[in-house]
């Protein structure tokens, strides 16, 4: 492939921020990259890797006291764009004009008090210097292009009237309307549901061709770049550690960090017993950023020479493949072999036949009030007729997009909410409508791990009293010595140093806080632990640590997990069986492998196909199912099958009747008329 024209070239960008008394910390430390016409480039890294700061530095969006140095060459602008200063004519022509940017939060990047049409056409008028009528015409054309139905009507609507995915489409329309040559998507789809994410990225990919723009995708998601990018830059600690064509990079990762990431991320096509290999430790603290290799402290292959000086990017044998590591791939391979094959299989766990928790026709609804008198005008059915069971020692994964009722279901089982109808049987006892007083002994047997490791721990309590609270409440220890011993045991169980017991939550990292949360959940010797998105707030390299911990604990303590998450790869990795929910109903349940190999429900198929796999080769061969529309609001639930409006197989019967969950053999059950 001949090289296309260079659009953006960054050379040796260094972005620093002041830090404590005169010292400055480098958020971006000498990043160089290039973008050619028609290309989609991925900038991948964990939080703190400097990927967002890099893209903001190019656009000169870094506010003082932050400082940017280096060179940025943009096609059509003479000389170094950074020399012109952030408020110059040239810089403004680049921002929005030459290079457009879409951010993560579609909620905050649109002005809520102006109509979307006004915002789009204003942008057109600024950059293309056309009159109002022409701008409006172009804006409507653009809205149509990004897949917004009835653009003439929606032109006059406010951002509030659009869903998250639609707002992101509006953002894209707004940015592309100014006819930029480069589009930067900074975690643009992270806040969206998987199926919406796929829709948006496919849209971006299509527009790249139609409008002839080049794209920089900034993300932490390896699968995403494997699917959509052409070339990838991997960042760590403000450096680019590896770059190359996506096929080269995924096939022959050369940097220990890239290798580590690929081993740490669960994949949808993993064999059942694959054990994740986490990257030990935490990303470096910006305050103590080493001057040598940033990955040194976590690198399993480190040598003394790594500590002398930061390695330069050097070329690998493949074309355009560069890596920042002294060790060659052969050396790393040899070292890897010498370290011995670590036990790759997950620890064996036992699943007994005894049903530990059973949910029977559970319904939960919230009343909806309107008007001055707070008249009840209806009900929102968050959970509709859900039944399932979990056996002791088993992990049941519950997946679904936002609004599918998975969290409400968890709250009902935890009895933070009282379900409207149905039974929740814990070891044969119905706890669905039990009084708070009778619930107390059961509360210690069903515990919960929360999503957000920041808001789920009392900031003023010490680690010890957080973990020890359930012990005291349930009178599980009888003396101070016993209490201390149990605390130490719990801390070591979750891999925390017992000496940290006097620290408060803010002195722990995200991963460590989640470990604290797990220790708290384990304190009262529970039988069932409900994990509500336990790893979704963590960085990918830390995710694997927590997933492995949960797996080990299950093998050791024989607990049952209800694992709720939106990330299908993680759910598939950890679960024995998976239940797919949509708008408050169960669509399909199956063993984890069966679900991946032989999904039955059209929704399951679409959901699976929307999840990218971090291997471009596998990605290239996958069938992609396009979904119509977005997840409807629970208020506008279709009369029949909840999925009927988006399903390509939907018949009149689907629109009128609700299919029930039918057994399909081998533990698989599906709620769809196609399989009757």
């Amino acid at each position, binding site marked *: 492939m001949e090289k296309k024209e260079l659009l953006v070239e960054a050379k040796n960008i260094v972005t620093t921020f002041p830090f404590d008394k005169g010292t400055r910390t480098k958020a971006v430390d000498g990043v160089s990259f290039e973008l050619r016409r028609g290309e989609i480039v991925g900038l991948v890294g964990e939080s703190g890797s400097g990927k967002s700061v890099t893209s903001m530095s190019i656009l000169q969006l870094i506010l003082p006291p932050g400082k940017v140095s280096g060179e940025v060459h943009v096609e059509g602008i003479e000389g170094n764009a950074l020399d012109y200063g952030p408020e110059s004519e040239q810089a403004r022509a680049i921002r929005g004009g030459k290079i457009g940017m879409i951010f993560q939060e579609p909620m905050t990047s649109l002005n809520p008090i102006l109509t979307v049409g006004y915002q789009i056409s204003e942008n057109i008028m600024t950059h293309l210097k056309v009159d109002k009528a022409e701008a409006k015409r172009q804006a409507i054309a653009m809205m149509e292009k990004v897949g917004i139905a009835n653009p003439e009507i929606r032109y006059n609507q406010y951002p509030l009237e659009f869903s998250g995915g639609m707002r992101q489409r509006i953002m894209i329309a707004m940015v592309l309307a100014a006819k930029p040559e480069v589009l930067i998507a900074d975690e643009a789809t992270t806040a969206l549901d998987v199926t919406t994410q796929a829709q948006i990225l496919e849209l971006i990919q299509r527009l790249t061709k139609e409008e002839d723009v080049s794209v920089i995708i900034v993300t932490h998601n390896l699968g995403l770049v494997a699917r959509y990018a052409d070339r990838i830059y991997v960042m760590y600690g403000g450096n680019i550690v590896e770059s190359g064509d996506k096929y080269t990079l995924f096939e022959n990762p050369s940097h220990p960090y890239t290798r580590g990431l690929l081993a740490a991320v669960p994949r949808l096509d993993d064999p059942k017993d694959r054990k994740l290999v986490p990257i030990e430790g935490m990303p470096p603290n910006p305050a103590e950023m080493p001057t040598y290799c940033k990955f040194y402290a976590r690198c399993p292959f480190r040598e003394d020479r790594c500590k002398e000086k930061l390695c330069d990017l050097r070329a690998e044998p493949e074309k355009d493949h560069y890596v920042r590591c002294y060790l060659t791939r052969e050396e790393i391979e040899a070292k890897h072999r010498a370290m011995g094959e670590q036990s790759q299989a997950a620890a064996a766990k036992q699943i007994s036949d005894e049903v530990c928790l059973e949910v029977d026709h559970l319904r939960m609804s919230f009343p909806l009030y309107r008007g001055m008198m707070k008249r009840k005008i209806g009900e929102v059915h968050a959970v509709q007729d859900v039944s399932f069971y979990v056996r002791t020692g088993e992990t049941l994964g519950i997946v679904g997009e936002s609004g599918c009722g998975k969290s409400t279901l968890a709250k009902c089982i935890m009895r933070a909410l009282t379900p409207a109808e149905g039974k929740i049987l814990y070891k044969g006892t119905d706890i669905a409508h039990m009084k708070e007083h009778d*619930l107390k002994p059961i509360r210690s047997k069903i515990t919960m791990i929360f999503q957000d490791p920041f*808001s*789920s721990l009392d900031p003023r309590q010490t680690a010890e009293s957080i973990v020890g609270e359930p012990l005291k409440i349930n009178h599980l220890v009888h003396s101070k010595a016993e209490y201390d011993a149990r605390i130490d045991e719990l801390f070591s169980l979750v891999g925390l140093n017992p000496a940290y017991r006097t620290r408060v939550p*803010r002195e722990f990292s995200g991963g460590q806080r989640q470990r604290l949360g797990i220790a708290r959940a384990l304190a009262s010797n529970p039988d069932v632990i409900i994990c509500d998105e336990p790893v979704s707030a963590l960085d990918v390299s830390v995710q694997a640590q927590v997933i492995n911990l949960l797996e080990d604990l299950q093998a050791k303590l024989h607990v049952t997990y209800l694992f709720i998450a939106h990330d299908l790869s993680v759910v598939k990795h950890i679960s024995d069986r998976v239940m797919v929910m949509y708008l408050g109903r169960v669509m399909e349940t199956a063993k984890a492998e069966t679900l991946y190999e032989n999904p039955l429900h059209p929704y399951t198929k679409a959901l699976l196909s929307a999840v990218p796999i971090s291997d471009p080769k596998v990605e290239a061969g996958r069938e992609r199912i396009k979904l119509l529309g977005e997840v409807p609001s629970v208020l506008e639930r279709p009369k029949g099958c909840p999925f009927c409006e988006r399903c390509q197989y939907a018949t009149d019967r689907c629109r009128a009747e609700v299919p029930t969950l039918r057994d399909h053999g081998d533990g698989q059950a599906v709620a769809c008329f196609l399989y009757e």
Partner: protein
Amino acid sequence: MSVQTLAPEEKSRQQIMREQRQRDIRRFFHTMFSRRIVIIGAVGTAFFLLIALFAPLIAPYDPNAVDILNKFAPMSAEHLLGTDIYGRDLFSRLVYGTRVSILTGVIATLMAAIIGCLLGMVASFYGGTVDKLLIAACDTFMAIPGTALAMALLSLLGGGMLNMAVILCITTIPGMLRMMRASSLSVMSTDYILAAKLSGENKLKIMIKHVLPNSISPIIVMATQSVGTSIMMESGLSFLGIGIKIPTASWGSIINEARPYLMTSPLYVLAPCICLALLIISLNLLGDGIRDAMDPSLRGA
């Protein structure tokens, strides 16, 4: 697991806890005084506090000793700031006036903070009708201008320092209550409160152990700032002649007495005015510093 070294185990747990607390306190003062101007506020406040505390030692004369022959005496070594309309030593009166101002301000605010906190917690704890009633009562009080309310209550209860403090307290409570209610409601919606509930802890204990300590900081900030407001109000009411009973020295009443003589002896009016302004500015600066130091968004590793 992360790469960390074991802390030396020889240190006793109490010792670790103590060091931790000292570190926290140091960090608190560090952020608080990171702006130079806050130091000025703290020094100013401390200055007036010392004057109030040691008033009998500092004041050269009895503030109420009348010497009618020596009225409107100019500044001199004997009378630092001269004398007033009845020949009382102005400096001594100002010194004792500091006492009145600070005492009423602090007492009123303390009472208001305690009562406001309690009622705010009650409102958020019970919710429903109790909450609605309390909020309605708050709104009613807040709808009446503070000064008008205080004047009405004063004429009902009569003047005097204690009554004054009670009345200022009443006008401050609604704000405190609303603040506490909002702050504890937001704490109650966090996951750690849910976690505590789910582990079977009873509701009252949750309120005391988790909600109160996590929602009190805005109240503390509000209290430091409302001391100044109360002092201002006290002076205002005394100026109107319905506050502190004469002959007790109060800055407000001194200003009131001196008002007709603004042209002939300007110091008589200016001195208490300057004192009042300096104290209020100092308190507000200090309050800003405390607010910055307590702002959780500025805290953390």
